[in-house]
């Protein structure tokens, strides 16, 4: 944390199992000494006594879901690398920048050794010869803490050549970004790590597990995903899967922000905690600010279609949320109370994705900006009714066919489930459309309220038209 007095974030004090945030309450949880004192690197030691295959199998069995946004199981992802092709790399995605998301920065600032240990376990299990830890550029404190942790870990023999006297040798190279949201997309992250512009590669054919960094098999894992591994290594698969549900085991870090009484980052039980628990629960956000009414919330980061109070009782579980018309994404909930100017909120997000478009593919580069400009006009009171339909038309060029949205009994709408079709290379283009689509679908009246009807102004006719 910055030492500036008002910089401290809110800390989760709930009485729940803490897989990744157990050291968050410690002032010096980021130092090796304290990490040792709290079981640090015991997971690595346990893992090194087993074969890589055994460790890989454990991670697979535990179904550690990826925490970056797509929710793909880490163990399965590791298994997608072509056999016998080396070297393979691990790229750690610490480029957290999805609107609403705040967890990886905390993990790097408050428990960097846990991340380092997670990287080592992954490298050992999946046969990864070099690790690149990519930290978002605008996080110098995380950078300092991780650099310090790595320096301590090298000195202690946890990283580098012949780790703890075994044949396991791997370097972890700290790398830093320079400000580009799209780099959080795993193939863009690889391009950026190769020193290029962070433009996503097309999948297929470039799935990183097969063709990644320098054309080699590459695993890209999120910081939170890897931070789960030390606990898993110490406590075992059974203990891990005992938390949460069968399809969503373990815990998840969720940041709840916006118009709630106690915004914060909470480590919740995966799969069972509902949005109502989170927004209104005593150990979580304790309700909407000033006793206001909830109008809408974004359940999974800025790219996710919006929910309304009708969806509050859904649990934090990927498939159920997908069927309800949105996604869990990166574990970020943004809450809007009844005072919120919905078109303006949508504009804020659309502006974000339009500004963060890498620019390589046409629909995102041109469509995102166009969408933003039309919406800006509407928000400024210069829009027309045709503009509202026009926004759907532009969106259709980015995402042809049905776009997911939540159900609304008030509007008589059924939920349109995930996924959607897209004409873009990556999800940035559709993400620019998602808030517009949600807001226009669920709150069209608020847009219409901004339309100033322009009546025809009569103009005196100077020349008589004979034809009439």
């Amino acid at each position: 944390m910055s030492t500036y007095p008002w910089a401290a974030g809110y800390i989760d004090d709930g009485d729940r199992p803490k897989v990744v945030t157990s050291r968050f309450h410690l002032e010096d949880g980021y130092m090796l000494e304290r990490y040792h004192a709290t079981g640090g690197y015991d997971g690595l030691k346990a893992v090194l006594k087993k074969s890589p295959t055994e460790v890989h199998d454990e991670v697979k069995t535990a179904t550690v879901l990826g925490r970056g946004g797509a929710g793909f199981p880490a163990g399965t992802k590791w298994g997608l690398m072509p056999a016998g092709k080396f070297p393979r790399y691990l790229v750690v995605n610490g480029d957290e920048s999805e609107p609403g998301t705040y967890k990886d920065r905390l993990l790097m600032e408050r428990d960097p050794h846990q991340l380092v240990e997670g990287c080592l376990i992954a490298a050992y299990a999946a046969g990864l010869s070099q690790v690149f830890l990519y930290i978002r550029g605008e996080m110098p404190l995380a950078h300092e803490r991780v650099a310090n942790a790595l320096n301590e870990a090298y000195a202690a023999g946890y990283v580098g050549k012949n780790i703890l006297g075994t044949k396991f040798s791997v370097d972890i190279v700290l790398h830093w970004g320079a400000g580009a949201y799209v780099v959080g997309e795993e193939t863009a992250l690889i391009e950026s790590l190769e020193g290029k512009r962070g433009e996503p590669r097309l999948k297929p054919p470039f799935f990183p597990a097969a063709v990644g960094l320098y054309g080699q098999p590459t695993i890209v894992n999120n910081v939170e995903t890897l931070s789960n591994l030390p606990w898993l290594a110490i406590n075992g698969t059974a203990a891990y899967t005992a938390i949460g549900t069968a399809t969503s085991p373990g815990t998840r870090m969720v940041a709840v922000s916006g118009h709630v009484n106690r915004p914060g980052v909470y480590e919740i039980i995966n799969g069972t905690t509902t949005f109502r628990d989170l927004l209104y629960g005593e150990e979580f956000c304790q309700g909407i600010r000033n006793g206001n009414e909830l109008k809408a919330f974004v359940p999974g980061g800025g790219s996710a279609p919006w929910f309304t109070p009708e969806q509050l009782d859904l649990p934090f579980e990927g498939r159920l949320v997908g069927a309800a018309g949105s996604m869990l994404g990166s574990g970020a909930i943004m809450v809007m109370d009844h005072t919120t100017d919905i078109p303006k909120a949508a504009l804020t997000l659309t502006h974000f994705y339009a500004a963060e478009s890498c620019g390589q593919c046409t629909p995102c580069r041109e469509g995102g900006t166009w969408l933003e400009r039309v919406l800006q006009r509407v928000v400024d009171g210069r829009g027309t009714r045709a503009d509202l339909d026009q926004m759907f038309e532009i969106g259709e060029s980015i995402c042809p066919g049905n776009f997911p949205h939540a159900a609304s009994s008030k509007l008589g709408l059924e939920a349109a489930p995930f996924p959607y079709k897209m004409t873009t290379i990556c999800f940035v283009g559709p993400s620019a459309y998602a808030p517009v689509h949600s807001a226009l679908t669920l709150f069209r009246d608020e847009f219409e309220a901004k339309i100033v009807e322009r009546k025809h102004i009569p103009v005196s006719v100077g020349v008589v038209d004979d034809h009439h």
Partner: protein
Amino acid sequence: MSRLNEANVMLAKEIIGRYPKARSATIPLLHLSQQQNGYITDDAIAHIAELVGATSAEVLGTCTFYEMFKMVPVGKYLVNICGTMSCQLLGADELMHHAEQTLGVKAGGTTSDGLFTLEHAECQAACTEAPNMQVNYRHCHRMTTTNFDKLIDDLRAGRLEGEIPVHGTLARVRQQIPADKAAGVASPDAPVVPAWMPEAAQ
């Protein structure tokens, strides 16, 4: 003139040495150059291109993709006010308006004394602490107009020099990989089966 100085060339070579391909060091070296000069000059780009074995046009292409790299001089303190969703919901617009009034510049401008450059920024990964801003990328959470004014006063008076380095300096702790402890780079041109995975050799 604004090529990397001798000490930084040494550092640059050490950084390059950590990657299987030199071009991967492009962004770290651009940061190094920005740390040295406060912004990125054409000479610096040409020098980095030489060091990483790319053309200047390619390094320029990378440099201009990322918004942290400034191609023109900016203030000693870069003040970035987040305007994305959660911050906007909790008063980012008002904070920006106040900042513009206080500093006397519009977003994108630099104060005449060269101390502050004010920028509109996107999500800073601190959404639960909204509204947020950063000074030279140091987070300042739960900003109000009052503590904004105090922060600017402290910066003007030099009271925060120990905590917030001048623009260009990112992290004050650098990774060191001692030569005797390094596992070494894994070159894509040298397909070696990891020593701890004997079964993969078959």
